[in-house]
């Protein structure tokens, strides 16, 4: 087994600015009010992930889940500590990035795929599979701006799940999309997991975490509150009484 992700004592500090213009800042200073503040979005987070593990990231709103994902994606630099990853990291975190409303579904697929790191040849190869997965028919050659929100989400998803990656990050999962499409996505994600890709799954839905993951990390105010067995993690969060959730509850996992 090879290490897929190494998160080593990672902390991230954010600044809160209370005033926006110079005048407001000066007035606040004169009145002795605070002009800025800091807080730790991640506080000494450490864990290792082996290739092929499926990790559920859970935690209440504002516990640092999205910030942690941004560090693993490489979008953000930690204030201290270090993150190391092996291979290509991709996932549902950037679905629809770079979509231009006036360009067609086809053009946007090529753009989004390039942003996710695919080459022209790779996209050509996988285009039929993507089109089939998105299942939007003739709309593929009309501007994305005319799509329903569900349709453009399907387009974004179909690109993301066809990237040949080593680490797959699923955030904002299935916020839009109808039941059949949700099922299709869950099935595809299970396939991705089976192929040995490291899976990072952020969700508030205990049942789908139970189904998808073999380890749970619970974040609490930027710290690792729990790291281990799935059922114990869900109990730790008191999410176990939530049995009517199902995939519907994944809707709640859409904050970023």
């Amino acid at each position: 087994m090879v290490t897929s992700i190494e998160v080593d004592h990672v902390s991230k500090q954010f600044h809160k600015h209370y005033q926006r213009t110079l005048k407001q800042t000066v007035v606040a200073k004169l009145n002795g009010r605070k002009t800025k503040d800091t807080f730790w979005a991640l506080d000494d987070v450490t864990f290792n992930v082996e290739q092929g593990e499926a990790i559920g990231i859970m935690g209440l709103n504002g516990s640092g889940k999205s910030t942690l994902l941004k560090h693993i994606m490489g979008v953000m630099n930690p204030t201290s500590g270090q993150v190391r990853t092996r291979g290509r990291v991709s996932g549902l975190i950037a679905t629809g990035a770079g979509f231009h409303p006036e360009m067609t579904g086809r053009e946007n697929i090529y753009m989004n795929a390039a942003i996710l790191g695919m080459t022209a040849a790779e996209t050509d190869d996988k285009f039929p599979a993507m089109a089939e997965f998105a299942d939007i028919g003739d709309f593929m050659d009309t501007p994305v701006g005319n799509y329903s929100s569900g349709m453009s989400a399907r387009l974004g998803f179909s690109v993301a799940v066809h990237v040949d990656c080593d680490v797959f990050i699923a955030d904002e999962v299935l916020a839009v999309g109808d039941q059949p499409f949700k099922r299709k996505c869950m099935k595809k994600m299970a396939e991705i997991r089976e192929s040995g890709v490291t899976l990072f799954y952020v969700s508030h839905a205990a049942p789908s975490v139970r189904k998808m993951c073999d380890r749970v990390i619970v974040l609490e105010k930027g710290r690792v509150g729990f790291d281990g067995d799935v059922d114990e993690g869900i109990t730790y969060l008191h999410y176990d009484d939530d049995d009517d959730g199902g995939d519907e509850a994944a809707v709640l996992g859409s904050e970023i």
Partner: protein
Amino acid sequence: MTEELNPDGAGDSVAVRHDLEHVPLVDPTQKGGLVGVLRRRYLLSLMVKRELRARYIGSKMGLAWSYINPFTRFLTFYFVFGIILGRGQIPHFAIHLFAGMVVVNLFTESFNSGTRSIMQNKSIVQKMPLPREIFPIASMLVSLYHTGPQLVILVGACLATGSFSPDPIGLLAALMAFTIVILLGTGMGLMFSAINVMYRDWTRVVQIFTNMLPFSVPMMYPFTLVHKRFDPFPVLEHFYLFNPITEAVLLMQRAFWITTVSPSDAADAETDFGFKPGLSVNFPSHLLERGVIFIGVAIVFLVFCQWVFTRLDDKVPDRLI
């Protein structure tokens, strides 16, 4: 659908297919700067095409607009400067102006759009780790693309005078002008794209600066007039010529304007603005040598801009809201 994921080795895990044991653990935020942009040429080309397509999308004339715009601008110059004002003062003054306008536009466009580029693409910047230099560079390439039609109009206008006789040194001068402007436009766009994320006020400052620039270079007025006005204070003329865009404009005029002035045009011209036939009167001395120096300065400046960008780059995702 597993076979789509595993085109060649069905059943093999990703770790085996990608030989992950021999792939190093790396810092995911390392994207390689300008070299990283070169590695992602395909994405860069798609971004440039998207910008170009998006600009004229839905219009019936499409890319023809990028010819119509500069052409009408040239006609306006011809009307104002060639017919209404100073007719006869400076031969082919519309070309004098338009030749400079081509490089000034290229610079201000790449500077302005480069400055806004990261903010405009923040949905991508916040989600995917890309070498963020790619955004101002794409803006510069889009501006460069729009220079093509302007050059076509410029050469067309030169040919229309009937006395256009381009020379190799003139072509070299034009090449140098573009080199200076591309290097500086890229550098400024790069540096201010990052600064603009930290301090949004800079969009306005850059706008003010690029509004002033066309008036600070000798294209709406001839260089001979500058020489005349600064005659009592030669130091000021030196300062005026320190502006690299001034140098680029003069190089363009060396290539396209002076080469259209035939001896009979020159004989008809009046001398109120100091115009006399001959290179040494209409241009500062050592024009080409100065051009070489400015290219050197522009290269150093681009390296400096990249250094500033790298310093600010880490903070960009934190400051994008």
